[in-house]
């Protein structure tokens, strides 16, 4: 679980000799460097009320214990979005002994922009010039020595994916951290009139302020204020602490606007881009005009207007084929192994220790059947899905998907980036709902979360495949998917129509194709799977235990009586099947397992002797649509608040009853 950043930072400080912060744009290899420098034992922390996390870890280098803080990747160090705010607060509050700033050599000017912001803040900096090998392949040579000279800070060339240069990087960072006075950072000067106004503001603040927030220099604070930074403006809005500072800022910002004919923040940003562009032009030379590599030319086909969509359909088709075939095979295998080797001895052990009573029976349910559920659903489907997702992510293809589907997503009031959590939701709704954090407005997050709840996750897929596809026919399973797909589309359009507000636009960086590193893919898959296990396992085992208790004590039949009208009359299912649906709230795949048990007990045979084909279809349909599982409800509650979580749940129950009833009606005729 994420903890408060402030507490974690001070804990980290106490443990180590030096603190290094990793900063840079998104996708410059920052996480790769962090993972290479640190082992296990990563702590994730966040600010109260914010969803962007910071990772920290302790590592050793020579004789030093070093704390490493991985700041969120951003394009600038402002306060206009949560990730930028977290990155800036993180770096200011952790007061690192050195900041390792990672530059992508392929995109130097854009990357230098934020480095200049760091230099304005006066932080001690070591630059990692990463992915130089890729730039060289494109015929672009970077003179890292000259870059270091121009910037006045050490520059270490690295290839993070292979670990090249990382030792030297840490060594340099430790050296800078230990001898900060020997490595002063001198910010670049902007246009003379801007500097004059910054100086005027700085000396005004030096006279009128007791201390600068976060111990910043008065120039650094002056620039932030002239850039219209809302966080610092807020800090200085108290007239008793900072008399007239903000009106002075307004006056000087207006003066800049008058001189340059554009708003002050834009003028300063333009200046910074100017310096960044100059630096790039000085240190990077196009050595030769290389032909675009074959890989990149093929990659261009994925976004092309003619071939993009067919490739997308192929990829998604392949993805689900691997998920269903591969996951299915793995699921059968796991099931077999568990039932052949473990289930028997474990059951005997339970009855041997606790005797033959209701508790032991329930425990057997909790452990033997609970673990079986975990093995036959969680591992095969969820792991395979996460693995595929990590590959798609690390090649950069997910961004292509977002690009291609932006138009469709707009019909739902979303934009292209929402497609990423929506795809994730085919694995599990929990990480998918957490993934909606990439969306900028609450409206978008509510719409996306609602759609995610409706998309069949791997547990529901297990029920559809194991129940409908196996016993009723694959055509019916496809029909069920078709119904759900239409439902998702209709819900999206309806929400877009009825919810106030508009969709925001898509602005997203697109990367050239990258070969994913197997280590990074496996680490990512493992981290996600671990989170899933932590949330899901207790519910899975506890739920199975509770269910076992009700079953062994015979209460399960008493409980089913009051639901009979809805289940029997309206949905046309056996009354006890309603119980299976209720318990599936714990874990959706329990619906099928429980139905199998109920079939064995009440009808003395297979599922088909308990429910006919039509009933199985209705059963799976209702199970797919009604109420998200307990873990999903919990995460909805956490992310969107109780009211929204309950509203979404209630609507899905209603939808499931309507559609289930319709399926029953159609069956009657």
């Amino acid at each position, binding site marked *: 679980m994420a903890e408060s950043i402030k507490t974690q930072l001070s804990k980290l400080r106490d443990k180590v000799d030096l603190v290094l912060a990793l900063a840079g744009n998104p996708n410059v290899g920052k996480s790769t460097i962090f993972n290479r420098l640190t082992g296990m034992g990563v702590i994730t922390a966040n600010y109260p009320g914010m969803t962007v996390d910071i990772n920290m870890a302790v590592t050793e280098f020579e004789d030093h214990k070093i704390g490493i803080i991985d700041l969120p990747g951003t394009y600038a160090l402002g306060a206009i979005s949560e990730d930028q705010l977290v990155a800036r607060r993180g770096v200011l509050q952790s007061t690192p002994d050195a900041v390792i700033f990672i530059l992508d050599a392929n995109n130097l000017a854009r990357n230098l*922009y934020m480095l200049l912001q760091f230099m304005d803040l006066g932080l001690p900096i070591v630059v990692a010039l990463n992915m130089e090998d890729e730039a060289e392949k494109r015929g672009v040579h970077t003179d890292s020595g000259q870059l270091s000279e121009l910037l006045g800070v050490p520059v270490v060339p690295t290839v993070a994916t292979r670990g090249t240069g990382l030792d030297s990087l840490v060594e340099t960072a430790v050296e800078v951290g230990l001898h900060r006075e020997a490595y002063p950072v001198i910010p670049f000067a902007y246009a003379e009139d801007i500097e004059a106004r910054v100086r005027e503001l700085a000396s005004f603040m030096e006279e009128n302020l007791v201390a600068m927030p976060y111990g910043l220099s008065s120039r650094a604070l002056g620039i932030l204020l002239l850039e219209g930074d809302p966080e610092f403006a807020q800090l200085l809005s108290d007239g008793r602490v900072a008399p007239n500072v903000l009106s002075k800022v307004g006056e000087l910002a207006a003066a800049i606007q008058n001189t340059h004919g554009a708003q002050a923040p834009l003028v300063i940003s333009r200046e910074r881009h100017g310096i960044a562009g100059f630096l790039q032009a000085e240190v990077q030379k196009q050595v030769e005009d290389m032909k675009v590599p074959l890989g990149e030319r093929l990659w261009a086909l994925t*976004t092309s207007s003619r071939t993009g969509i067919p490739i997308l359909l192929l990829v998604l088709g392949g993805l689900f084929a691997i998920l269903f075939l591969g996951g299915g095979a793995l699921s059968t295998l796991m099931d077999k192994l568990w039932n052949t080797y473990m289930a028997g001895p474990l059951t005997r052990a339970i009855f041997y220790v606790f005797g033959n009573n209701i508790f032991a029976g329930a425990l057997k349910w909790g452990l033997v059947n609970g673990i079986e559920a975990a093995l036959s659903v969680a591992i095969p489907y969820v792991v395979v899905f996460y693995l595929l997702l990590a590959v798609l992510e690390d090649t950069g293809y997910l961004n292509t998907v977002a690009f291609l589907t932006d138009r469709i997503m707009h019909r739902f009031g979303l934009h292209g980036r929402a497609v990423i959590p929506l795809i994730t939701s085919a694995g599990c709704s929990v990480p998918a709902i957490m993934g909606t954090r990439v969306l900028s407005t609450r409206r978008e997050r509510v719409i996306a979360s609602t759609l995610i709840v409706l998309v069949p996750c791997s547990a529901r897929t297990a029920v559809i495949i194991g129940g409908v596809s196996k016993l009723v026919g694959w055509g019916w399973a496809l029909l069920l998917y078709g119904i759900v797909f239409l439902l998702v589309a209709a819900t999206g359009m309806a929400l877009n129509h009825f919810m106030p507000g508009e969709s925001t636009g898509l*602005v997203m960086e697109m990367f050239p194709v990258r070969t994913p590193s197997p280590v990074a893919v496996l680490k990512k898959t493992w981290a996600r799977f671990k989170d899933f296990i932590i949330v899901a396992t207790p519910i899975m085992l506890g739920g199975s235990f509770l269910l076992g208790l009700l079953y062994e004590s015979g209460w399960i039949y008493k409980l089913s009586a009051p639901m009979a009208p809805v289940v029997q009359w309206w949905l046309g299912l056996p009354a006890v099947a309603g119980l299976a649906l209720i318990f599936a709230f714990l874990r959706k795949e329990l619906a099928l397992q429980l139905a199998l048990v109920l079939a064995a007990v009440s009808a003395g045979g297979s599922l088909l002797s308990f429910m006919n084909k039509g009933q199985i279809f209705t059963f799976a349909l209702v199970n797919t649509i009604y109420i998200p599982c307990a873990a999903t409800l919990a995460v909805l509650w956490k992310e969107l608040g109780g009211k929204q979580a309950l509203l979404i749940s209630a609507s899905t129950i209603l939808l499931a009853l309507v559609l289930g009833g319709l399926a029953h009606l159609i069956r009657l005729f």
Partner: protein
Amino acid sequence: MPSEKVEEYLEGIFKLECEEGKANVTRLAERMKVTAASASEMLKRLEKEKLVTHKGDRGHVLTARGEHMARTLVRRHRLSERFLTDVLGIGWDVAHEEACKFEHVLSPDVEKKLAEMLGNPSTCPHGFPIPDLDGKIAQTEIRRLSSFCASERGVIAEVDEEGPELLQYLSSLGLIPDARVEVKEIAPFNGPLLVKVGRSAQYALGREVASKIWMKQ
């Protein structure tokens, strides 16, 4: 005197012609926030009054008279905006809406006096050129990035966005005036644009965002 509605349509067609090279019924309806049926009905009426003509695949085009009227309106609109922001101190964001009402009540004399009082400004507060008395637009033509085709290039003239969040986000990505932009690809179904900014950075820009970026050659 043509009605206010006619004037609004003339202005709409004029802007579509400037931005996209042609005005068809669908885009006009979108712009005027009406159904395609009412837009097409209005076009017929304008055709009858000889303010527009139909030119095959170029769609509806303003006649000389129609264009002159449209340019006068654009001039009055942008002058009104200047008056509202510079003299009355009304914000940029509100000025446009208010000016939509103003432009229809100005007589040629008032328009002339207003321009004199404001010192004959050349641009509106949003940075768009104000046509002169003959309706001529001095500056080089600017178009929305959203109207670009694949492999077209240009330089950003202006980012027409008041919200600081998007404006600063775009500027941190290097999408600022004078930045060189090349449209590499356009997603199917009139989707987002894949643009290259500077030497190597590539971004996907949604239609709404791209329509806020004004380009010059």
